[in-house]
């Protein structure tokens, strides 16, 4: 077909009018859960297991008879690791598909791309990822650990195993900057001293000079909130220089994307971390979860921290719908704000009514033979960083992401 102006106009006009036709509202015999995740592209290592976890949770809910006597139906969009697609699919989910709830978003940038759309269209939004903290918005619920929750647990343990002088290596964007500030605070609170802080852009992969610098500063402990594949080189070069047995390492990010399975045991063993979830968590809830996952997908090796967060997020929402007895946004939020809790694979998760963040168990772990061995469980840690700036009970109209000053 040759494309001339006339039939181009005709066809675009036809397309445009078709898309403007009012969507006939489907008979409301299902509940629509919207999901928006990067299941392809550079973040798919995070997004794919999250998508699998969400579907597992929905299948379970449906197998148990659904919610309010209705089945839950998933409407999922793959944002292909492209931030621009978040705003597009966010609009589509809320305005065309008119879903009852949205779960998803991985990077903070993706969350901020859709948060306002969710708020405007009054669609409850669950962001189920560990992140830098500080979001204060009545329409959003966040169940990932924030820096203070992790660092508050990790720093005293790591210092007790090593010593008082700490060197920090962090990724150079808001997550790394904010986390580094929290580490400095808790090091000081525990009577220690920060002897150096270095920030690295995400594409830096050569740490030779840094390793020499660390040695001239002579710390007892190195804490490394480094992010992504390039930064993984640090842990490798650190081991290659023979430093691993001289100065202990701790991290707030290593292992979230199952990095401990990439490092060899010689490179990884002994690195200290603190998260909400570990595959090695030996609880009945986690063992049952891993069995269900294996039954659905064949192999439970892919499960990671934020996949479990996503699973727990769907369960939390479902529990709130049950308690509210309705899908109405305000009723669901009211039910969540009663301080509702669920039992997930990573333990009890409670909604904090003031901040809409989560009170949850933080496990201190050490890498051991490409697994994360649980050393200690600190039950029900409060999101103290966000609590310091956000009070939705007093100020329900708030709609900001605070930079937390320490």
């Amino acid at each position, binding site marked *: 077909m040759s494309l001339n102006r006339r039939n181009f106009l005709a066809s675009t006009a036809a397309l445009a009018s078709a898309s403007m036709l009012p969507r006939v509202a489907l008979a409301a015999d299902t509940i629509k859960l919207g999901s928006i995740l990067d299941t392809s*592209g*550079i973040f*798919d*290592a995070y997004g794919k297991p999250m998508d699998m976890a969400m579907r597992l949770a929905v299948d379970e809910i449906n197998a148990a008879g659904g919610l309010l006597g209705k089945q839950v139906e998933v409407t999922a969009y793959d944002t292909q690791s492209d931030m621009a697609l978040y705003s597009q699919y966010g609009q589509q989910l809320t305005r065309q598909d008119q879903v009852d709830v949205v779960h998803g978003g991985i990077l903070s940038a993706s969350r901020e791309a859709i948060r306002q759309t969710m708020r405007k269209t009054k669609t409850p939004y669950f962001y189920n990822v560990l992140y830098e903290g500080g979001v204060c918005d009545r329409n959003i619920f966040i169940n990932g650990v924030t820096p203070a929750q992790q660092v508050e647990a990790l720093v005293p343990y790591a210092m007790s195993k090593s010593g008082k002088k700490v060197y920090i290596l962090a990724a*150079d964007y808001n997550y790394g900057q904010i986390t580094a500030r929290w580490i400095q605070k808790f090091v000081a609170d525990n009577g220690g001293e920060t002897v150096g802080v*270095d*920030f*690295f*852009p995400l*594409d*830096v*992969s*050569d*740490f*030779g*000079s*840094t*390793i*020499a*610098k660390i*040695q*001239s500063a002579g710390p007892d402990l190195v804490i490394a909130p480094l992010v992504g*594949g*390039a*930064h*993984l*080189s640090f842990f*490798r*070069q650190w*081991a*290659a*220089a*023979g*430093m691993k047995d*001289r100065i202990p390492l701790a991290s707030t990010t290593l292992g979230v*994307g*199952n*990095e401990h399975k*990439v*490092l*060899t045991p*010689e*490179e990884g063993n002994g690195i200290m971390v603190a998260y909400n979830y570990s595959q090695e968590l030996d609880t009945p809830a986690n063992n049952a979860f891993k069995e269900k996952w294996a039954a659905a997908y064949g192999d439970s090796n892919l499960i990671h921290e934020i996949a479990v967060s996503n699973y727990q997020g769907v369960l939390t929402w479902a529990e709130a719908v049950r308690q509210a007895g309705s899908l109405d946004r305000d009723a669901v939020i009211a039910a969540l704000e009663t301080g509702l809790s669920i039992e997930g694979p990573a333990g009890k998760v409670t909604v904090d009514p003031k901040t809409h963040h989560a009170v949850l168990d933080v496990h201190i772990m050490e890498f051991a033979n490409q697994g994360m061995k649980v050393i200690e469980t600190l039950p029900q840690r409060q999101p103290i960083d966000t609590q310091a700036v956000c009070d939705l009970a007093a100020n329900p109209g708030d709609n900001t992401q605070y930079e937390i000053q320490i």
Partner: protein
Amino acid sequence: MDLSVVILVEMLYAVASLILISSGLAVVFGMMKVINLAHGEFMMMGGYATITAVNLGINIFLAMLVIAPLVVGLIGLAVERLVIRHLYGRLVDTMLATWGLSLFFIGLATMIFGNTTTGISTPIPGFAIGNYQINGYNFFIIVVAILLLVAMLVILKNTRAGLIARGTMQRSDMAAALGYSPDRIYMATFFCGSALSGLAGAVLAPLVGLVPTSGGAYIAKAFITVIAGGPSLIAGLFSSAGFFGIVNQVFTFAISPVIGEVALLIAAVVLLRLLPQGITGKFFKGKL
């Protein structure tokens, strides 16, 4: 004292890794004038070839020094036959084509190896210099870079093949008149350039976490080094890698790694303002 030795080693290592990263591009872009935007991906494939070979139980040094250059060289050969040979002398078109190739290789690597970080550990243990521990693998990289430069020099200067290749790059019509097929010589040179990129990716693989998009981290540095080096292949490569490596490490040690990277880029801008033809456009003129 110990610290100054450590700093010296780190500087040599920075220079050596710049030489490695840029050598393949120096041949493909510096000699053949093909703007190969897929250079980083050739390195990435060298890394994957090494990791795959090591996982199959092959000795790591054999994998890095023989298998990876061969595999990437052969991929380069296919690329040259299918795409590049139609585009010699058309700078902008090669840019577009090789950029497409780079996207294609990233996609291919993602399909085969998945979008996760993989890697192997370094085969050489660290050792102590006084109170400092240092990565023993750095010395391996320095040695490989030196051997590479010497080998390139010997081949280009003292062998007939090197002479023919250089002659063809300068005046392919004359080479053809003397009975050599420029088509074949271009093909062989591109094979060598790709194999060098594969070698670089392979040798650097144990130091990094490899993902299909890893190539992006190298491409800018490689182009800066080759362009700032100027018309002489080996003297240019050595002098600009030396200059940038030292600038980068001085600022890294004095201030921070970020400032080190910034200093490298500023040095490149200033250098090209003062010496638009590159270092060897003014110094070491006429050298190889």
